[in-house]
């Protein structure tokens, strides 16, 4: 109905008030948008939607609900879907379907999440770029690439820049591989949350507040475990944390390399982790986020990270300027004004279940090949920190690799 009218109206608003306002959508973009919407609506299993090279300005979030569809662009810098003028949202592309493949295009400046895939099996995301082009801002969309409640998901060779929460966020999923991606300028570069079986490797995470996070949140149906983080480059994640308070990642201090929070069976090995100014590796409990309440946490939720195994990483620098006031004071108290935290900081929240008995071998935090650990003694307000490595001198059985079945087609 009167699509031209809205163009005129937006144009008038632009002239009228002079504040930041979306550029009007031209007729070419409007007809592209309607065509793409119809292609998505009319797609059948097996359909391939080819989007040629070009910069397209869209006003409405797109959605797909048909299984077995492939969306293809001409390249992550050639086919650009821009949502700078988005009026109806909030996502860029919302997919509720299985056997979905998306490759070689960019999604920019969405008001909400750029690419959200909810409740599907066999998801392949290849060569996608998501970005907020005005730089790091709290008002940017929350997540760049966001599969949630999915099974068999591959995210590879993709780029995420400027998301206001996490660049790549795998939530409540089973069997995920996140490899060879680049994530920058987000509170969390890559976040694996409440997910069972994830391999995160070959990625570059830099200039985020936290590079790679493995979290369990407290009031969801799925508790995650079994994530391997290996062969990643995680350096200089010292960006100010611009996440809105209240979100899980807002609790991540700037300068965090790899962070495990309340998740179990996490293996961190063969990574290059360097110059993350709070600490290269942080292991923590939900209690450290300062969001734990009596009512808000599901019965049965385990807020303690258990079965964490760190070994064989190349660790360098970092820990010299913690991005959290309590940590700054703690660093000065333990290591002096010019000193640094060691490679690993543990917040010190231990499962009270094991208070009077030895902790089971598979629930331990085992650290190898690190220059030290700081038990921050969070439960007692950081009063009695400890640098004793002894409790962490152990090994754990290695986790099996994640196998995607069926194998992705790409």
């Amino acid at each position: 109905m009167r699509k031209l009218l809205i163009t005129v109206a937006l144009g008038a608003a632009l002239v009228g008030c002079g504040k930041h306002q979306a550029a009007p959508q031209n007729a070419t973009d409007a007809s592209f948008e309607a065509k793409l919407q119809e292609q998505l609506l009319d797609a059948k299993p097996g359909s391939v939607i080819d989007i040629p090279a070009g910069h397209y300005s869209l006003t409405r979030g797109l959605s797909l609900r048909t299984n077995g569809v492939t969306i293809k662009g001409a390249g992550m810098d050639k086919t650009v879907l821009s949502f700078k003028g988005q009026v109806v949202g909030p996502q860029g592309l919302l997919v509720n379907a299985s056997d979905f493949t998306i490759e070689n295009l960019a999604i920019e400046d969405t008001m909400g999440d750029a690419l959200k895939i909810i409740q599907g099996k066999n998801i392949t995301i290849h060569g996608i770029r998501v970005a907020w082009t005005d730089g790091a801002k709290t008002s940017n969309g929350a997540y760049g690439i966001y599969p949630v409640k999915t099974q068999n998901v591959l995210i590879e060779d993709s780029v995420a820049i400027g998301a206001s929460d996490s660049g790549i966020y795998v939530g409540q999923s089973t069997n995920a591989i996140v490899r060879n991606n680049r994530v920058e300028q987000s509170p969390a570069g890559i976040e694996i949350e409440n997910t069972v079986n994830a391999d995160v490797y070959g990625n570059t995470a830099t200039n985020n507040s936290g590079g790679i996070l493995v979290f369990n949140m407290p009031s969801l149906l799925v508790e995650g475990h079994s994530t391997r983080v290996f062969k990643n480059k995680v350096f200089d994640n010292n960006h100010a944390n611009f996440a809105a308070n209240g979100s899980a990642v807002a609790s991540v201090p700037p300068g965090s390399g790899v962070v495990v929070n309340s998740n179990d069976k996490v293996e961190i090995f063969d990574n290059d982790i360097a110059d993350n100014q709070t600490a290269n590796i942080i292991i923590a409990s939900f209690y450290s986020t300062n969001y734990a309440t009596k009512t808000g946490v599901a019965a049965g939720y385990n807020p303690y990270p258990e079965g964490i195994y760190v070994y064989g990483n190349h660790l360098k620098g970092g820990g010299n300027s913690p991005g959290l006031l309590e940590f700054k004071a703690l660093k000065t108290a333990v290591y002096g004004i010019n000193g640094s935290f060691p490679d690993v900081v543990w917040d010190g929240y231990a499962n009270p279940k094991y208070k009077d008995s030895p902790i089971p071998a598979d629930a331990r935090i085992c650290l190898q090949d690190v220059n030290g650990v700081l038990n921050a003694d969070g439960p007692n307000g950081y009063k009695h920190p400890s640098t004793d490595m002894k409790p962490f001198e152990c090994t754990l059985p290695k986790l099996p690799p994640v196998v995607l079945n069926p194998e992705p087609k790409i």
Partner: protein
Amino acid sequence: MKLAKCVASLGLLLLAGCHRGMPPVAFHAEGRPNTLSAWHVVEVHDGKLELNAGVVPYGLNSHLFTDYVHKLRTIWMPKGVSAKYSSANTFDFPVGTVVSKTFYYPRATDGKFSDVARTLRDHGDFAGLGLNMASVRLIETRLLVRRKDGWTPFTYVWNDAQTEATLTRTGAIEPMTLVDAQGNREDFKYVVPDEGQCATCHEASMVTNEIQPIGPRARNMNRDYDYGHGRQNQLQHLAEIGYLSDLPKPSEIPHEANWRDPAATLEARARAYLDINCESCHNPSGIANVTGLSLGSYMPGGSHYTGVCKSPEAAGPATGGRLFDIVPGKPDESILMYRMESTKPGIMMPELGRSTVDREGVALIRAWILAMKGNCDIVR
């Protein structure tokens, strides 16, 4: 029963006398008719939006806020079939059912086409005998059609002449102005959803991907309606005319509060409001199940399921810097309020279906949270 059905049919026949020139309702088992008139469900004749014979209007105890628009809802079914009653879910409607919802505004007094009245007087929503075109502006009529393979949505947008509505699959945006009784104006963009967005709210299960109507559930339809010859309970009426089977005794039928009813308790009103405005996504198998927040009136109150002291799961900037969905006694520290009070996509809730703030709904939920006991003290 048979006699009652017969009498009711006679009544409908008498009504049908008014439907000059309207052929019987057409159920299209496939395809996408380009105009609303192809269905013969509601049509404009002689200055009136009329309902065809057998097209039964209904109202809801509490309804979804959509920019103060008014909604005329109808159900039509082919002869010889009926919907099966369910106490909790949308009734199981037979193939051939056509559910319609016409979105319209009372016109503002200045008579300008883009100016519409901001009014809570919803008696027009129960205008089962039609709408007077001199006093309303029709925006869109949405159909949900029960075909063999499930429900199919169609959205028809009315033309400026208000004579016909055309299929609009990819949505539309209409700049309009709400004018209240004191003449205060609020410009807004009325957004007609695209076909994909229909599913966002109407998808019953994220696993099966099936969509269905949201309104026609026992708890929300258990109320009276004025059919032009006296008031009658809607469910009884539907059963009498043969549209509804397996209806239990009145005492066994659940009843949702009307959230605008000052006689109902604050708790019942607030839960009814959240149920109809949020539950279609925020339920254990809906699209928002991933958030862990479930706002159906059947969920246990005062728990993290319904948001009390619950950390947001994936709100991002939509937390507004607040820590929990609901903080008892503190609406201005509750994310729920922040999202209801926003009109920005990505921040606002519901995600779709409005461009303005539901002031009365906000006031209700604010009062409800304010009256809530307890706290969200941090434990360490």
